């Protein structure tokens, strides 16, 4: 789960990191008032959960409250990568002498948290990693002992020569690591970490992604979730215990298991069409899950055929078949459905489907080809109209 910059700044502050004062505002008037309250020049930043805000014109500097109000009226309501800006952060602008990068991720290869710093701050760190990896200093952290004092210092020395700054940076890195652990983050980033002309060390941006698996022990953080970050169908799917990602094609997919769901999408592509979505109904799927899955897939107007690919293990094929029957009773289904079922209770499932006149196959290749064929036929009369 991603959290907004203004939320991440608050979490960083509560762990002792120096972050310039700020306010959140939803109207140009609120922005003007916030700027007046903060005093001096401010930066107005769109609060959206996508990268590239600056490039899209969602971050602007303003010298006076009036200018802040004007710039905010440009930013509020702006569309950044399909997301409408509804809130902005108004933060005191700082006089920047140098910009660095500091971040922590959980590194899959070493199975440890890794802290990275680079003097090349303020730019895309992935770009730095690709073009000039030698500019990044990485330290693996043993999660049982945390970021050790000497490690924090070494990271400080990688960025600064001035001993006072090195000590402050080391202190800040320990705070950043503490925040990372406390909220069960999967990523914590300060980009840029700046030194002001007055010699202060400040985090002027904050990025935090949380581990979804750990949210059960952070009910307070779960409340920070912003539904505008998700397609409404994706929100509904998550609430119903399904994993759904909307895509651009026209074959709706309902599959049990993430790997098989991806392989099904790939096979659709292999046979020359495009999947409309990724959808994993998970294990031990009861009929209700199938009904919810059908509703979500059908909410996408691009869908011209629905493909079920079920390999029964924990999932019982007869449960899925019953779900399909119930869904057909409850929902208005105006596209063809093709079904592949194999594994646990397959025979029973085939009997159930046959009773409502739905044929099923046990071959994945066959069902994909058939879905594509039917989708083309469903789409054709519409195109002719």
């Amino acid at each position, binding site marked *: 789960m991603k959290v907004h910059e203004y939320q991440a700044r608050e979490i960083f502050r509560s762990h002792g990191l120096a972050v310039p004062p700020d306010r959140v505002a939803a109207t140009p008037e609120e922005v003007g008032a916030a700027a007046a309250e903060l005093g001096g020049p401010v930066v107005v930043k769109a609060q959206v959960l996508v990268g590239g805000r600056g490039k899209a014109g969602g971050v602007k500097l303003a010298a006076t409250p009036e200018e802040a109000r004007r710039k905010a009226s440009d930013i509020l309501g702006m569309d950044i990568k399909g997301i409408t800006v509804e809130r902005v952060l108004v933060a005191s602008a700082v006089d920047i002498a140098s910009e660095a990068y500091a971040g922590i991720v959980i590194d899959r*290869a070493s199975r440890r*948290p890794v802290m990275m710093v680079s003097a090349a701050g303020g730019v895309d760190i992935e770009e730095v990693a690709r073009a000039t990896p030698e500019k990044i200093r990485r330290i693996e952290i043993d999660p049982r002992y945390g970021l050790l004092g000497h490690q924090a210092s070494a990271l400080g020395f990688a960025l600064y020569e001035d001993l006072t700054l090195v000590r402050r940076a080391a202190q800040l890195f320990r705070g950043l690591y503490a925040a990372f652990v406390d909220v069960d983050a999967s990523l914590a980033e300060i980009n840029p970490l700046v030194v002001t002309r007055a010699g202060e060390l400040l985090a002027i941006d904050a990025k935090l992604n949380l581990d979804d*698996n750990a949210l059960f022990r952070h009910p307070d953080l779960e409340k920070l979730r912003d539904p505008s970050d998700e397609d409404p169908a994706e929100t509904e799917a998550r609430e119903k215990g399904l994993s759904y990602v909307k895509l651009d094609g026209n074959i709706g997919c309902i599959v049990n298991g993430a*790997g098989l*769901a*991806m392989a099904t*999408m790939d096979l659709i592509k292999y046979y020359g069409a495009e999947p409309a979505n990724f959808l994993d109904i998970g294990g031990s799927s009861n009929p209700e899950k199938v009904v919810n899955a059908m509703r979500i897939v059908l909410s996408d107007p691009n869908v011209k055929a629905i493909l079920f690919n079920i*390999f029964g293990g924990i*999932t019982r094929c007869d449960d899925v078949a019953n779900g399909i029957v119930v869904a057909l009773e409850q929902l208005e289904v105006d596209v063809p459905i093709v079904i592949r079922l194999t594994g646990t209770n397959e025979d029973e499932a085939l009997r159930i489907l046959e009773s409502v006149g739905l044929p099923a196959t046990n071959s994945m290749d066959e069902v994909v080809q058939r879905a594509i064929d039917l989708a083309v036929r469903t789409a054709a009369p519409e195109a002719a109209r």
Partner: protein
Amino acid sequence: MSVFIDESTRLVVQGITGRDGSFHARQMMEYGTRVVAGVVPGKGGQTFDDAVPIFHTVADAVAETGATASVIYVPPAFAVDAVYEAADAGIELIVTITEGVPVFDMTRVIPYVQERGARVLGPNCPGLISPGKSKVGILPGQICTPGPVGVVSRSGTLTYEVIHHLTGDGIGQSTCVGIGGDPIIGTSFIDCLEAFEADQETKAVVMIGEIGGTDEQEAARHVKSSMTKPVVGFIAGQTAPPGRRMGHAGAIISGSEGTAMEKIEAFRESGIGVARRPADLVGLVREALG
């Protein structure tokens, strides 16, 4: 022979009375796995299905029954402690089926287990099966048949799909291992490849990967530098968009890293035959077996 488990494996089921634990304990017993104990704190002294003694702790289960492996079906909030408990009790193989375990907790428990000379498989994995000998986890036994092919995969049902094709074509398996779909897992592709390389029964290996991370790329380099047995593979997620989690917590393309194409290329560069469809693995395996 087989890898990690065989007919002598003595299994304790942690969470044997839960919905998933009881269902799969029965499935494993039917398959012939030696389920020697169950552990449910508070239910020690009871018996599961009139056949398996239940203990309060794993240590008691090990002392009384000589269990060597454990399988964990407890909910995510308690799963990590169950792993620590199994390691402290001297269990050698700890198979963690539970999905949704906090990632940071795994970074702490894995070294703890390794320092005790034990192995974690998973979390968020289907477990493993040595056809005809033993199964630990949730893989459906009826789709497997004994034979010379080792299977290792990050997925569950996609693995079943592949095994189904192999068995349907008369190609049996030595052991099938599901390593799990989370970003931090206890047993890697490379651990499994090393085990298959050392296993006399295994003549070829099928490796099934997916988007996210660089485990497959590292495994490919390992195949090139250290394996004498042929390896063929499949990568799921060629149509997955970047930045989106595709079900598995670990299945996410971050920036430009972890794409299916990058992994397929790494496989090819290391001489690993890559199937375009799961069904095509059968032909590749036949070729590999010679």
